[in-house]
């Protein structure tokens, strides 16, 4: 049963707004400019937040709605914002994100875009993907999912031409919980099974540090051509419950069947993926993957001595919460005391936990008293100082650590990484205790 703790306000929010999720999704696309329609603070906070998290340049802009404009409610800011972005950066497309303020004001985005197209035919070349992301609804993950869905809905060709030479093309819809190393692992596995993949959005390539020159638009993520080509794929794999909505669009618009993985973390889910790939392609499993599985298994065996009897608590957006929570409870055998999350989506309600709470880090602090360690973002650092619990940092933001984005949590690589990382925390606790 999912609990909601009765209190009037959020104490140390776990939730980030939909705006942050939507922008993160757009950052995984090549030469897109995320444009936040609202007062400039929403963009500035989010930019600061994501820059510190990724340690990368994170291009984004704001329509900078100001006092008078707020009250009158015209669309000059929006139009001027789009025009300026096209003039200055000439992006392949614009990801337009709304805010609570423009939603309360009742801005009619469709109508406004229509007027924009009429008024400025010179900008007709640049598509604008508009996403509704009021921050009084949903969470970062829903914002992320909405941005991916909106992108597909807007950019997929209306009548896709099936090209039977591209039989081996697979779409991968990568949820917000995936790290760069996760996306890389998934891509490599599919490619080594002889498949071609298009990953949407591909924040591994854009925010993973491989762009070493200066840029004013995110580079090397999913290109607009790739997005067009997704219509010709044979199959879609959706990773994370929140990506189902986007997979549905591909199904409805282009008749592409899909399979959804609520998680790819742990031996069970990894095996399921590999079995599927073996069936689908009829190919043998690459050697490196076999080796990696053996190593994952070995890591679990080695570390299991320290897992026994431990208790943990976790706070994260639904997909990440489920992936890690499920693996640590069902395959490591560590008890879950309290799981805190931000929205009702995905499979997290299946977790075996004493408490599953829709809430914040304040609730986590209150309901994790028995836990030996905590999994949460870096905003839980002050809390873990107070409670003297070790913190394994996951999710958004992680501002005080290098390399978090390059840890793999999925596949056999993820099994090994997590067995070691969680194992080390447990081992230190055991050593401390015995002294």
């Amino acid at each position, binding site marked *: 049963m999912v609990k909601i703790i009765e209190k009037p306000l959020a104490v140390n929010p776990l939730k980030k707004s939909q705006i942050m999720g939507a922008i993160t999704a757009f950052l995984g696309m090549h030469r897109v400019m995320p444009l936040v329609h609202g007062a400039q603070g929403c963009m*500035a906070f989010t930019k600061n937040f994501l820059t510190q998290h990724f340690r990368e340049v994170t291009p984004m802009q704001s329509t900078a*709605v100001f006092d008078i404009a707020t009250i009158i409610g015209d669309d000059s800011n929006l139009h001027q914002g789009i025009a300026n972005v096209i003039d200055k950066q000439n992006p392949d497309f614009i990801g337009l994100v709304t805010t609570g303020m423009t939603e309360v004001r009742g801005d009619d985005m469709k109508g406004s875009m229509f007027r924009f197209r009429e008024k400025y035919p010179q900008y007709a070349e640049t598509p604008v993907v508009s996403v509704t992301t009021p921050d009084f609804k949903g969470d970062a993950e829903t914002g992320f999912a909405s941005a991916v869905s909106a992108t597909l809905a807007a950019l997929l060709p209306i009548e896709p031409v099936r090209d039977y030479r591209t039989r081996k093309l697979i779409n991968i819809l990568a949820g917000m919980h995936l790290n760069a190393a996760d996306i890389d692992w998934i891509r490599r596995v599919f490619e080594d099974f002889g498949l071609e993949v298009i990953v949407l959005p591909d924040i591994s390539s854009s925010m993973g540090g491989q762009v070493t020159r200066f840029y004013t638009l995110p580079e090397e993520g999913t290109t607009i051509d790739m997005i067009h080509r997704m219509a010709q794929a044979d199959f879609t794999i959706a990773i994370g419950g929140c990506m189902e909505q986007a997979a549905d669009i591909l199904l409805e618009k282009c008749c592409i069947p899909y399979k959804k993985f609520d998680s790819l973390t742990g031996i069970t889910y990894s095996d399921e993926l590999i079995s599927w790939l073996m069936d689908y392609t009829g190919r043998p499993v690459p050697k490196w993957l076999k080796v990696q599985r053996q190593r994952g298994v070995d890591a679990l065996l080695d570390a299991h001595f320290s897992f026994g009897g431990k208790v943990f608590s976790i706070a994260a957006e639904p997909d990440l919460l489920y992936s890690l929570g499920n693996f640590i409870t069902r395959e490591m055998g560590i008890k879950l005391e309290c799981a805190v999350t931000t929205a009702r989506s995905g499979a997290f309600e299946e977790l075996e936990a004493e408490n599953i709470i829709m809430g914040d880090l304040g609730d986590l602090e209150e309901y994790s008293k028995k836990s030996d360690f905590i999994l949460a973002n870096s905003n839980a650092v002050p809390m873990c100082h107070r409670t003297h619990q070790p913190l394994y940092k996951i999710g958004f933001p992680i501002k005080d650590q290098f390399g978090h984005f390059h840890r793999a949590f999925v596949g056999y690589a993820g099994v090994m990484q997590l067995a070691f990382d969680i194992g080390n925390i447990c081992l230190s606790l055991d050593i401390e205790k015995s002294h």
Partner: protein
Amino acid sequence: MRLAIQQLTEEPSCDHNQKKTAEQKKNACKKPTPGATAGGCAFDGAQIVLVPIADAAHIIHGPMTCTGQSYNNRGTRTDKGSFHQYGFTTDLSELDIVFGAEKKLKESVRYVVEKFSPKAVFIYSTCVTAMSGEDIGAVSKEMQEELKVPVIPVDSPGFSGSKNLGNKFAGFSLINHVIGTREPEKIPMFPINLIGEYNIAGELYQVEPLFEELGITLFSKMTGNAGYDEICHAHRSKLSVVICSQALISLARQMKDKYEIPFMEGSFYGMGETRKTLVKIAENLGSDILKKRAEELCDRKEKETYEKLAPYLPILKGKRVLVYTGGVKSWSVLNQLEELGMEVVKSSTRKSTEDDIARILEYFEGNEDGLMPKGDGKTILNLMKQYDAHLLLAGGRNMYNAMKGKVPFVDVNQERHFAFAGYDGTLELARRLVYTLTSPVFEVTTRPAPWEVSFG
């Protein structure tokens, strides 16, 4: 409520406007350009000033963006409490907005006071709650009476302006609701207000010992390492010293009008500025002995610092720096770099007032070439190349731009981990400059990869 916001936003949004004609005003204080802006909102600015008061709780009345993406992210250090690391927000839902959330806000204040017993509660309005007409003023009054804890409204919707304006909103709340609400137990010999110093990375800790040694009491700090109580008795100080903040001069001015406390500006960036500031404070406090003591202290400190700087100065000598930072900070940092023997090739004038610009120009001996207008990462990197600069000194926003350009960089932003004020700070800055300038990383990372090398 609407009216209150209007009044506030009708104030000129930057001080450098005040001497100008209406026409000039329009030009100087242009609204941000849609699609080409940087910088935070007024709400952000209000928080910068007030959140360092860490024994008071800060409740943000609005939906999630304002808090979810921003809390626990201030570089301020304090030993007075831990609320600066907390995010309290009413996290409004759609229903709350439709039906009004004043009740929710009241319950939130009760909850926080009961559970966390803060010394005071600050309530911030944001875009959505200002638009839907939530009356945080009335709620504050009611709650203060009910709970017997000071509850202070901060009217700071983001859409009303820039961070600078938000700084002012914060000052407005302090002067109207906090300062003068309590009398101190005793008044020391030389009590002063320090305004606009937020103890970023512990900068206050670098200058505090100087005041201690002189016998000057930082009676009310606004707001680095401040407790709520000390701000209440700020009206008993003998002098206000505004550090690097144009926006809060208005607060000092209001305190002068209301309580006849004279004010002055100062800076602790660099040994020269530190000396000037300390001596001027002593002068303003009207004590010759104090002035003499300040001069002696500075003599001694300078001597000590130069001794410690000895290993670094030869490395820094003649190195060219591009400075891209806002406001008052830019000219004081220029002087600080000059003391270290470095040469500034260009300095930004972003957020600078005319006074600031005049001072920057003074550094460049009147040559306007030294001034650099607003620019994006690309402009900065291009200028670096053009002027063959060795190093970029800027805010965190540009840190990763610099890394993409593979140029040495020192961060002077709010979230940084190093403090650069006073004598110890000058030493720290020298170290940071030397570390980045001499890092082998830049040579290694600019080498071509094996497949990029052409033979023959």
